[in-house]
C-alpha cells in the first residue's frame, strides 16, 4: 500500500528526475516512441501510472491471484509449473500422405499436439477436381476431399492420445465429422477425443475471407455442431475464436482484442438464443491470438483479454461455472511481421514474439518458420521454430514463476488501456447494431483496411524501421535457405485418388445421406448429425457444401466491406 509519505517521496523524486532528464531530451534515438499499434508510450511508468493501484479493490478486481477471477494473472493456479504450454505446430501440405509424414515427424521431435492446415479448395468447400481448385490443390495445406483422406493423414496416430487442432471454418463441421469417423474406426470413444476446431466464421467475414454461406445460416451450422459436441464430444473445443487473422489483416492490438471478444460474445448470444445453457457450452470455447512484435503491448493484450472475458461472462451472461469465465487461448507468432528479406532474421522475431505469448500466459503456441514469406516451411525451418519454444521453456527460466510481469507499472497501465479501448469498441459495435450488422455493413473490414494502410505509411515515412526492409538492407541479397515446393503432381494424384474413392463407394448411400443433409438444413434438424452420416459413407466436402449452397446461397462481400476507407 502506498502511504502518504511514500507518495510525497515519489513525486518529489520524479520532479527531480524530470529536471535532470530534460537536458537529454533533445537527442532522440527514434523519431517516435509508439507501439506497433500506433499508440504513444510515456517515457517512464511509475506507481502513479496505474489508477488506484494502492487500493484493495484494485488488487481484487483488476488482478487477483492466478486461477482466480478475473484471471488477469492466468487461468490456472500454478500455470507452467504444473504443465507447460502445448507446443502445437501448424502443418499440412500436399497430399494426405505427405501431411501424415510431417505429423509423424513433429510428434517424433517432441511436438505435443497436432494442428492441421488445409488447402484453399478444402477451406472453400470445393473438391480437388473442381474447376476453381485448379492450381490450388495442396498448396496452402493438405487437400481433403473425403474420409479416405483423413484416414491416411491420421493413420497409426492414436486419436485417443493426441489432441488435434483443425484450422477450417466454413466446412469445419464436415472435417470434424470425418475426424470423428476416423476415431470411431480406431475404436476411440468420442468422450476421449480432444482437440480444437477453428470453426470461427465471424472472423472470416471480417478478416480472412474464406466464407461460403451468408453469416446467419453459418452461425446455425456452428450452434448445431456445439449442441452435438456438448453432449457427445465433451473434451473437444468447439470454436477457437480467432483474433489472429484479424491482426494479420491489419488490426491494431486493441482492434484484435475488441473484435475477437465481440465475436466471442456473438457466439455466446447465438447459442443462448438457440436454447443452450451458457454453462453447457462456454467452457469449451477457446481463443486464438496473434503474437505481434510489440512485446509489452502483446503481453498486456492477453492479460486484458482474460479480464474482459471473465467479467462479461460472469456479469453480463450470468455464467455460474467458473470454467465459463476462463479465457484459454492459443497463440501464433505474427506471420505478417516476417520478411522475405534476410529471412534468417525471422528466427529472432519469432523468438521474441513467442516469449510474449508465454509471458502472457498462453495455453498453446505455434512458432512460425523463418521461410514462410517465401513458401510453405521446409522441415529444417519447422524444426528451428519448434526448438525456439523448447529454448524458451527449458533454458530461459521464464516458466519458473507465474505472470512475472504482473505488477509492472508499465504492463498494468497498458493492460488497463487496452481493456478501456476494447470496451469503447464494444459500445460502438452495439451502437451500429451488433456484430452481424457490422459485418454486413463492412464496418470491421474498413477499420482493418485503415489500420493496415496507416501502418504501411508509417513505414514509408520512415517512422518505423523494419530491419532488412527499409533499413539495414543488403545490397546483393541471395536467398540461402532451402525453399519447399509443392509439385504439380500433387494435384494430379489427389484428383485421381478422389476419382477412385468416388468409384468405389456406395453412391446410393451417398445420395441418400446428402438428401437428409438438405432436409436438415431446410428444416430444423441437426445439420452436424446429418454431416456425420454423409462423411461415414465417403461423401465429399464439395458435395456436402454444394447441398448447403443450394439451400442457403453464397455470400458476397458488400460494397461497404470492399471500400478501402
Amino acid at each position: 500500500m502506498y502511504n502518504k509519505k511514500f507518495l510525497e517521496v515519489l513525486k518529489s523524486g520524479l520532479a527531480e528526475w524530470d529536471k535532470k532528464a530534460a537536458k537529454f531530451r533533445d537527442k532522440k534515438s527514434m523519431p517516435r516512441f509508439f507501439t506497433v499499434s500506433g499508440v504513444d508510450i510515456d517515457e517512464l511508468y511509475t506507481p502513479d501510472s496505474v489508477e488506484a493501484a494502492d487500493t484493495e479493490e484494485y488488487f481484487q478486481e483488476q488482478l487477483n491471484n492466478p486461477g482466480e477471477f478475473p484471471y488477469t494473472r492466468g487461468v490456472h493456479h500454478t500455470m507452467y509449473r504444473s504443465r507447460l504450454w502445448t507446443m502445437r505446430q501448424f502443418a499440412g501440405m500436399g497430399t494426405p500422405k505427405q501431411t501424415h509424414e510431417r505429423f509423424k515427424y513433429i510428434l517424433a521431435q517432441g511436438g505435443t499436439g497436432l494442428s492441421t492446415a488445409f488447402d484453399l479448395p478444402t477451406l472453400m468447400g470445393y473438391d480437388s477436381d473442381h474447376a476453381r481448385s485448379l492450381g490450388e490443390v495442396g498448396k496452402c495445406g493438405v487437400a481433403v476431399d473425403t474420409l479416405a483422406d483423413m484416414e491416411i493423414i491420421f493413420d497409426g496416430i492414436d486419436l485417443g492420445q493426441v489432441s488435434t487442432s483443425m484450422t477450417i471454418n466454413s466446412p469445419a463441421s464436415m472435417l470434424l465429422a470425418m475426424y470423428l469417423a476416423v476415431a470411431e474406426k480406431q475404436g476411440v470413444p468420442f468422450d476421449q477425443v480432444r482437440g480444437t476446431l477453428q470453426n470461427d466464421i465471424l472472423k472470416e467475414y471480417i478478416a480472412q475471407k474464406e466464407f461460403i454461406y451468408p453469416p446467419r445460416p453459418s452461425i446455425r451450422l456452428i450452434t448445431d455442431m456445439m449442441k452435438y459436441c456438448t453432449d457427445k464430444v465433451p473434451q473437444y473445443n468447439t470454436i477457437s475464436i480467432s483474433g489472429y487473422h484479424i491482426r494479420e489483416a491489419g488490426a491494431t492490438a486493441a482492434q484484435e482484442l475488441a473484435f475477437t471478444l465481440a465475436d466471442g460474445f456473438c457466439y455466446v448470444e447465438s447459442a443462448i438464443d438457440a436454447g443452450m445453457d451458457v454453462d453447457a457450452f462456454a467452457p469449451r470455447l477457446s481463443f486464438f491470438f496473434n503474437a505481434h512484435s510489440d512485446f509489452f503491448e502483446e503481453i498486456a493484450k492477453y492479460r486484458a483479454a482474460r479480464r474482459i472475458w471473465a467479467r462479461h461472462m460472469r456479469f453480463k451472461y450470468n455464467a455460474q461455472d467458473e470454467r465459463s469465465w476462463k479465457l484459454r487461448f492459443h497463440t501464433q507468432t505474427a506471420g505478417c511481421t516476417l520478411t522475405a528479406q534476410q529471412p534468417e532474421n525471422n528466427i529472432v522475431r519469432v523468438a521474441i514474439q513467442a516469449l510474449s505469448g508465454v509471458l502472457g500466459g498462453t495455453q498453446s503456441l505455434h512458432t512460425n518458420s523463418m521461410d514462410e514469406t517465401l513458401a510453405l516451411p521446409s522441415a529444417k525451418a519447422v524444426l528451428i521454430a519448434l526448438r525456439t519454444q523448447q529454448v524458451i521453456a527449458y533454458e530461459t527460466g521464464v516458466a519458473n514463476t507465474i505472470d512475472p510481469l504482473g505488477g509492472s507499472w508499465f504492463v498494468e497501465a497498458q493492460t488497463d488501456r487496452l481493456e478501456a479501448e476494447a470496451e469503447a469498441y464494444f459500445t460502438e459495435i452495439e451502437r451500429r447494431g451488433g456484430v452481424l450488422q457490422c459485418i454486413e455493413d463492412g464496418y470491421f473490414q474498413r477499420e482493418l483496411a485503415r489500420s493496415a494502410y496507416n501502418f504501411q505509411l508509417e513505414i514509408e515515412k520512415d517512422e518505423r524501421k523494419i530491419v532488412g526492409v527499409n533499413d539495414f538492407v543488403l545490397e546483393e541479397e541471395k536467398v540461402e535457405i532451402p525453399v519447399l515446393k509443392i509439385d504439380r503432381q500433387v494435384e494430379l494424384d489427389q484428383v485421381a485418388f478422389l476419382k477412385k474413392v468416388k468409384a468405389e463407394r456406395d453412391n446410393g448411400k451417398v445420395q441418400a445421406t446428402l438428401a437428409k443433409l438438405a432436409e436438415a438444413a431446410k428444416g430444423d434438424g441437426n445439420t452436424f448429425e446429418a454431416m456425420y452420416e454423409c462423411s461415414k459413407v465417403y461423401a465429399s466436402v464439395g458435395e456436402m457444401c454444394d447441398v448447403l449452397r443450394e439451400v442457403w446461397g453464397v455470400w458476397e462481400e458488400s460494397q461497404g466491406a470492399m471500400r478501402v476507407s
Partner: protein
Amino acid sequence: MAEKIRVLLAKPGLDGHDRGIKVIAAAFRDAGMEVIYTGLRQTPPMIVDAAIQEDVDAIGVSILSGAHMTLFPAILKEMKEKGAGDIILFGGGIVPDEEIKELEALGVAKVFTPGAPTEESIRFLREAVGKKKSDEKIM
C-alpha cells in the same frame, strides 16, 4: 494535364487475404489514380471482362496462395483471346525469383514480393502506363 491512370485491382483464385491489395488500392488512390477494386475470388474471365468494360490501363492482382503459375497465365490467355493484350498486367504475392522470371517471360509486366514499398509500385505503374501511351501515339 495528363489523363488519370485507370487501374483495376482484383484477387484471383480462392485466397482471401486482401490486406495487401487494399493497401495498394489506398496508395494508388492517394497517388491520384482511378482505382477499381473488384474484390475476392475473381476468375480470369471476370477480371478481363471488367478490365475491358472499365477501359483500364492496367490490371493488378494479388496472389498469396501459391497458385500464381496457374492464374497469371490464365489471365494472360484470356486477355489475348479478348483482344486486351495491350493492358498492362502486374501483380504481387509470394512468388519465388525464378518463377518471377518465367512469368515476366510470359508477359506479366512486373511481380512485386512481400516488403515492396507502395512507392515502388506507383513509380512502376506511372512509367509503364506512360510508356504504353507514348507507344500508342507513335503508332
